[in-house]
């Protein structure tokens, strides 16, 4: 184990996987930085969030490719290269820009295997950032995992810790299906113990973040630590919670969630997206349909409102679920009569 930041853990996974398999390569805007510059040696950016830094020194510009601002082209080139036997890891700087590449993901990469009668594989990874918290306003703050989770054929990973960042990215790169990999932009600087060497976290296997008796909390990404904060405060009132981080929204570890709800009888789902047709409503529907008789209180969903993400601090703060809102929701369901 070595203490690493979330960012370093991701970079670690890229180094290991690129060494292990020469079909793996990275591509995206400024993933190297300065390729083809008349004034500077390439390599001074390493991705605007710094995840691909240093890769080109070991793997060269052939496998670390700076791309023009052409998101549809980036996603489509990755899908095509994957179809032709490579394992591209494409970076889309903010998931909001997936709007431009949606056709390549939704109609192409997601469906090759099915449409072609099981004869094709598209082992691409599309790494992207998501989430509010930086006052980056409506086009740079969205959490669009529900959108791609809803598309059969795509897998979706969203690590909440440095160890999972490494383990899930390694798995994503080795997976034969297209994976959309969501990195929360406020998590890059958090640190934690990360296993050295090969570390694979299986898809579809939730992490039990903490265990308790009174309520099940389900959350991903940044919201996991918000739940932990809330749970600490609740413990003072004698309320204990299971906190479950599914880690991949597709495939989804349904059993981990359902087993927990059967035990606690209460469910609060937390996600920083608008509420309609969301990951939160998906989990709520799952529990309501499968373990209805175990429920002692209505299921609560703590999400953003049905609005875009606003700019000003006061407004953005209202959009994002807070530990206080989570705590209040748990208190409410625990005290439900």
């Amino acid at each position, binding site marked *: 184990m070595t203490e690493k930041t979330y960012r370093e853990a991701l970079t670690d996974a890229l180094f290991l996987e690129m060494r292990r398999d020469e079909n793996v390569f990275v591509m995206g805007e400024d993933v190297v930085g*300065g390729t083809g*510059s*008349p004034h500077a040696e390439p390599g*001074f950016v390493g991705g605007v969030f710094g995840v691909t830094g240093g890769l080109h020194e070991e793997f060269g510009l052939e496998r670390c490719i700076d791309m023009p*601002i052409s998101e549809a082209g980036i996603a489509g080139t990755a899908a095509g290269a994957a179809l032709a036997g490579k394992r591209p890891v494409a970076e889309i700087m903010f998931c909001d820009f997936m709007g431009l590449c949606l056709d390549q993901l939704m109609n192409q990469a997601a469906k090759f295997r099915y449409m072609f009668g099981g004869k094709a594989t598209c082992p691409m990874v599309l790494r992207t950032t998501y989430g509010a918290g930086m006052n980056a*306003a*409506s086009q740079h703050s969205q959490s669009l995992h529900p959108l791609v989770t809803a598309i059969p054929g795509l897998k979706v990973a969203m690590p909440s810790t440095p160890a999972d960042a490494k383990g899930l990215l390694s798995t994503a790169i080795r997976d034969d299906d297209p994976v959309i990999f969501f990195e929360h932009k406020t998590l890059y600087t958090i640190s934690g113990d990360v296993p050295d060497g090969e570390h694979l976290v299986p898809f579809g296997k939730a992490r039990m973040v903490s265990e308790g008796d009174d309520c099940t909390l389900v959350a991903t990404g940044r919201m996991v630590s918000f739940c932990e904060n809330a749970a600490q405060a609740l413990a003072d009132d004698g309320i204990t919670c299971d906190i479950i981080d599914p880690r991949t929204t597709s495939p989804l570890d349904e059993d981990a969630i359902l087993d927990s709800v059967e035990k606690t009888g209460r469910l609060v789902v937390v996600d920083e997206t608008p509420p309609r047709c969301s990951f939160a409503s998906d989990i709520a529907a799952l529990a309501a349909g499968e373990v209805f008789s175990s429920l002692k209180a209505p299921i609560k969903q703590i999400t953003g409102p049905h609005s875009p993400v*606003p700019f000003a601090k006061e*407004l953005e703060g209202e959009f994002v679920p807070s530990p206080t809102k989570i705590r209040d929701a748990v208190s409410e369901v625990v005290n439900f009569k």
Partner: protein
Amino acid sequence: MQLAREELEQAYKQMKTIREFEEHLHREIMTGSIPGFTHLYAGQEAVAVGVCENLTEADFITSTHRGHGHCIAKGCDVIGMMKELYGKADGLCKGKGGSMHVADMDVGMLGANGIVGGGPPLATGAALAAKLDGKGSVAVSFGGDGSCNQGPVFESMNIAAILNLPSIFVYENNRYSEHTHCDYVIASESIASRVEGFGIHTVKANGFDFFEVHEVMKELIAKAREGNGPCAVEFETTRFYGHFEGDPQNYRAQDELKNDRENNDCITIFKDKVTEAGLLSDDDINKLDEEVNSLIEESVDQAKKSPLPNPEDVTTDVYVSY
């Protein structure tokens, strides 16, 4: 320089207002009082002003992430903009948009844009509306060198051409998209030569010189108003600050910035031209500078005093009615 005295004063004042607006932000961002992502337009003022001085409120523009200059040049209220950047309730967009989303429909400013290449299709749509209205309005999209590689930009140029729309594509080539040099990501000889391939009349011009920008645009915009279809311009220009504040800019040539600031500062070039030709005196310029400075001071003062948004307003204005 066939411009009346008032026109010269107006042009200078607009460029200087943009410059001082950005200089203020440059200082203020370091203190942390400006939230979010802010991209400064300083250095490129001659383009925004040279274009927009040929437009009226009935014409449309779309802008980019580096949008403050276009907004001011098109007539957005400077005080409302400053309030918006500080995230205040009475900002031009009520604190919902911030730097990357300043807009004002009342003056035909259809928005800065957080999506590179987001504007040109919208401007093309506004040009379609203008054509259908038949009153001679035009729509200008501003875009950087980096934006010319987006598919929707290609598509809108072709649409504008086949529908013969009064759509004017302005490319501000400041040599870089973030940290990437334009030569690497643009395969054609220039942006202009690529755009010509769409069957669009295209000009390359010097964006450091307000008078050249103004003259080129005057002719092109007049033709577009008369129903001659789309056109495009690639302006050579420079940004005086990094892509974002704090950008070390190690991708630029040694002395590039120093050289640009010394020899390619559009405001200095303008000042030298008008004073040498005796069109405006140093005193005239100083007076305009004072006016600009007091406007910026006033805007900052008001922005700091303005009320913060009410958290409950997060859900207002999502729809017209719901």
